[in-house]
């Protein structure tokens, strides 16, 4: 961790980057930190409690500006960064990645190839919480699932924390803000809420890296991350991709195979 601070301070001092996005201690757990100078870099921490997906900040031009910046990245963050790269939202010349690997060694990545090679070593496994809730949902009948989600959806008040926390929700105008036509009613109501979350999941097909940031952000505790997580688990093997390890341009939804499944088509 000390190495990370030193390195961050050094690259800020020598002008390699003008900003380091990392983590600091927060009220209850680490929170995002923006370091503009060596002084603030002293506050940097990086450990297993660091959960926020900092990739969410990388597409905000008002924060990262036009210069080069660094980010201390978790595996989840790295996966998101790779997806953002595939979607033409990041370029190598603007980004420097700092991370601390499992052995506690400070690592730096400059190219997407390097990130990709590193990310490849990590399997995307369900957490205990995810496993517990998903097992429960998977054991339900369709009606039970409907009732489960309707109850959950009744709590959603459309604060869009899920959207704001997701690194891949970077549209300047989200579909819920489109009003010609008004695809999704903007007020909170069970159907409008469900439409929003189904829509979000559809928009994540082939893109979601299952970082869990959306569910973590939800102030009313809806396990929305599991909708996209389950979708990802279903779709990744079906369409043959590994989240966060994009191989070519496009994504699972904008490509196809001749022998895609179609037994549901009459």
């Amino acid at each position, binding site marked *: 961790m000390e190495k990370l601070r030193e390195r961050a301070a050094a690259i800020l001092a020598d002008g390699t980057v003008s900003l380091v996005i990392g983590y600091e201690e927060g009220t209850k757990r680490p929170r995002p930190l923006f370091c503009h100078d060596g002084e603030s870099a002293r506050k940097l921490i990086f450990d297993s409690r660091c959960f926020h997906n900092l990739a969410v900040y990388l597409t905000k031009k008002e924060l990262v500006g036009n210069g080069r910046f660094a980010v201390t990245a978790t595996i989840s963050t790295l996966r998101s960064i790779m997806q953002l790269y595939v979607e033409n939202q990041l370029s190598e010349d603007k980004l420097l990645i700092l991370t601390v690997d499992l052995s506690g060694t400070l690592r730096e990545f400059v190219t997407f190839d390097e990130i990709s090679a590193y990310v490849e070593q990590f399997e995307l496994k369900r957490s205990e919480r995810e496993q517990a809730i998903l097992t429960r949902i998977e054991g339900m009948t369709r009606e039970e699932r409907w009732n489960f989600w309707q109850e*959950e959806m009744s709590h959603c008040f459309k604060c869009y*924390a899920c959207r704001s926390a997701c690194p891949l929700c970077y549209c300047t105008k989200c579909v819920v803000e489109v009003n010609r036509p008004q695809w999704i009613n903007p007020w909170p109501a069970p159907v409008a809420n469900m439409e929003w979350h189904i829509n979000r999941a559809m928009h994540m097909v082939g893109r979601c890296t299952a970082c869990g940031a959306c569910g973590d952000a939800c102030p009313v505790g809806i396990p929305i991350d599991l909708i996209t997580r389950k979708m990802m688990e279903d779709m990744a093997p079906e369409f043959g991709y590994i989240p966060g390890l994009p191989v070519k341009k496009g994504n699972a939804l904008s490509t196809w195979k001749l022998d895609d499944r179609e037994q549901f088509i009459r």
Partner: protein
Amino acid sequence: METKYISKSGIEQWFKSIVDSGKRVYAPVNSRDQIEFKRVKNLSEVADEYVQTTQSIKASVYPKAEVLFSYEKEHGKVHLTDFNPDSIPETVLWKVHPCDAAGFKPLSAIFNWDSPDKLHNAHVQKTSVISFSCAMADESCFCTSVNGSPGNLAGSDIQLTMLPDGGAIAEIVTPKGEALVALSPTVFEADKGEDKTKYLVDLPARFSLEEVNAKLNKAFNSTVWKEQSERCIGCGACAFVCPTCACFDIQEDVHGSTGRRIRCWDACGFGLFTLHTSGHNPREHQSQRWRQRLLHKFSYMPARLNVVGCTGCGRCSRACPVDMNILEHITSIAEQ
């Protein structure tokens, strides 16, 4: 105001009489690992041993979405149906925290600024508030810094302060409170002279409101907004859990030739909140939106409505996905 004593069984009996009177009763319920206000029928459903509900009770007087009026179109003609205040049922809010009850005043101040708000007022009129003073607090609570206290009576019709014997001190504040007492008058016994403050959580003030107000009045162009807001991701969680945030949107719910005009919650933190059709956005950056939130509560509202827009409930800090701790931010401004 009258102070009475009510025993444990008296509370149970009184609660039942309120439910039996046909009023809707809302109370904090422990569900899905969260404490939230829900409609209840039995006292046993009500949660205890918690610091704060996730959401405030403001939806009872300012629903997330409500119909302003409805209309029907026919051959170029339009028939309007106004909002009917009689459609609002009588409601009792049970076990509201003083910081939530205190939120009714700033909320009403916004809604009734110059022109009265028929809908909000109808809800307020049909709503009675039974607050419980606070014996617990956490690091996010700061009511005592914003003119409140764990035993603040503002906004309450009746306030109960729980006693170790399971009974409570009942402070009957308003005629509405008296009407509730009248549902079961016998359970209210004479005041036993207990000192209420003994049972309140000790929460020292964290900043001086006057100082903060004075500083903020001059802080529009300060760099603090950019510094504080960097990690803000621009969601509406803080606004939606807040007991006093009142920003709203007006929308259309159309079904063929009939439709309804809807008022629904909105948040000044959303990037497109102030976007003009021309593409110009007066609050283009998150820092401007963060500034708006704080200045509105601590500078504009005191100046224009003579009320502070914050009750110190701490919900926004707890709800924030990125730990935008309002107390920390305000304190740092106060200490500048």
